[in-house]
């Protein structure tokens, strides 16, 4: 399957099209809204479904060296990417050091719905991927926050104030982190047999729930762009497209080294390419209150997420295919 085919198939999938409907409605200033509690339900569902299914797969295949290696690679990516991002941002944009660190933290971490989208696309293409990738996703959520705080520390007026532990609690006990990890553990313990009892809900409905969630994401991303356009200088807009490609490239190299399958490689690339917009903003609002939360959110939700969804994912799949196909 060529890249053009992949891109076309991706752009014609109901999920991506519903995202486009949401974007359109937001730009046209329609009053269409997904009620906030419903958006939270959709997010809860996606995290539970992703986590549970990943856990059940791990239970099925057992813990392997490759799993450990991939998790290690994920943690490394999450720790290291903020430094790359910060260096680029300080050279190309006029962001303050603290804001640059905050943005860098977002790009080191991951977006669960982008993960859901790539797994959805792979399922539709019948490309298998390592089930434990959800554990990798979970492991990549938080290390980037430490890096961001370290990057920001020398530039903060207020003393470190010793509430480091406080912040750590809040990061690790963030609702979305707990849901994903909790569901992962439930899946690992109850295994394929447990999954069978809840398959109609957590497996069969997944693409439909994803459509609803992406409609909402389109609305929120469109509104975020309407509101946050003022923060989107040319350099930040370009960064929001280039940084995913850089992340994906590093991830591709690591995946190749580990020997992941084509599907697994595409997932790791997508994780690296995605930017957080739930867990990291929440954590940084508490740990780095001087940073303006609207800047990274506009970039992550308004540019990087649509870019990955529309173009990035087929590209990563194509590249993953190319580098894993024996010549």
């Amino acid at each position: 399957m060529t890249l053009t085919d992949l891109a076309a198939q991706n752009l014609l999938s109901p999920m991506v099209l519903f995202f486009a409907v949401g974007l359109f409605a937001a730009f046209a200033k329609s009053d269409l809204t997904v009620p906030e509690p419903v958006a939270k339900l959709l997010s809860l569902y996606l995290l539970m479904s992703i986590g549970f299914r990943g856990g059940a797969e791990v239970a099925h295949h057992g813990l392997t060296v490759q799993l450990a290696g991939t998790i290690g690679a994920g943690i490394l990516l999450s720790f290291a990417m903020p430094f790359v991002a910060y260096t680029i941002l300080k050279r190309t944009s006029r962001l303050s050091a603290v804001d640059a660190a905050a943005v860098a933290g977002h790009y080191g971490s991951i977006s669960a719905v982008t993960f859901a989208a790539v797994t959805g696309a792979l399922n539709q293409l019948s490309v298998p991927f390592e089930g434990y990738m959800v554990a990798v996703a979970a492991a990549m959520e938080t290390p980037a926050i430490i890096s961001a705080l370290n990057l920001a520390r020398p530039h903060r007026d207020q003393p470190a104030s010793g509430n480091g532990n406080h912040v750590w609690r809040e990061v690790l006990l963030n609702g979305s982190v707990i849901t994903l990890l909790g569901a992962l553990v439930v899946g690992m313990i109850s295994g394929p047999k447990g999954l069978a009892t809840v398959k109609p809900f957590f497996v069969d409905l997944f693409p439909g729930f994803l459509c609803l969630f992406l409609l909402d994401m389109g609305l929120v991303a469109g509104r975020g762009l309407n509101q946050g356009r003022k923060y989107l200088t040319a350099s930040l807009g370009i960064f929001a497209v280039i940084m995913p490609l850089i992340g994906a490239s590093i991830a591709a190299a690591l995946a190749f080294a580990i020997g992941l399958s084509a599907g697994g490689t595409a997932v790791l690339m997508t994780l690296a390419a995605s930017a957080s917009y739930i867990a990291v903003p929440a954590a940084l609002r508490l740990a780095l209150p001087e940073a303006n939360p609207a800047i990274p959110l506009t970039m992550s939700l308004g540019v990087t997420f649509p870019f990955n969804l529309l173009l990035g994912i087929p590209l990563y799949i194509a590249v993953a295919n190319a580098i894993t196909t024996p010549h």
Partner: protein
Amino acid sequence: MQTHPKKRIDLIIEMPLLRRITERFDKAGVSGYSVLPIVAGRGQSGEWSAGGQVSEVGQMAAIICIVDAGKVDAVLEEVFAVIRKQIGLVTVSDVSVVRPERF
């Protein structure tokens, strides 16, 4: 009915900071408070709306606290210790209550 003067403190603050603020209320020794949802608004940092949001970042909430006039300063001091760097809005107004002993 006989009424007694008290103070009503109204806060509009970022939702992620709710817990930190209410901890300050406890510290200031208020007898209670109530949190009301806000669904949309506009301020210096632009417009926002809760609609469709998964995260609380950028969302606001309102806190109402009825206190004795003598406690107002203590509460304000605690509150401003937290919201110095954050978005937040505090007003104080006069109210009358019927049962003064509970505040």
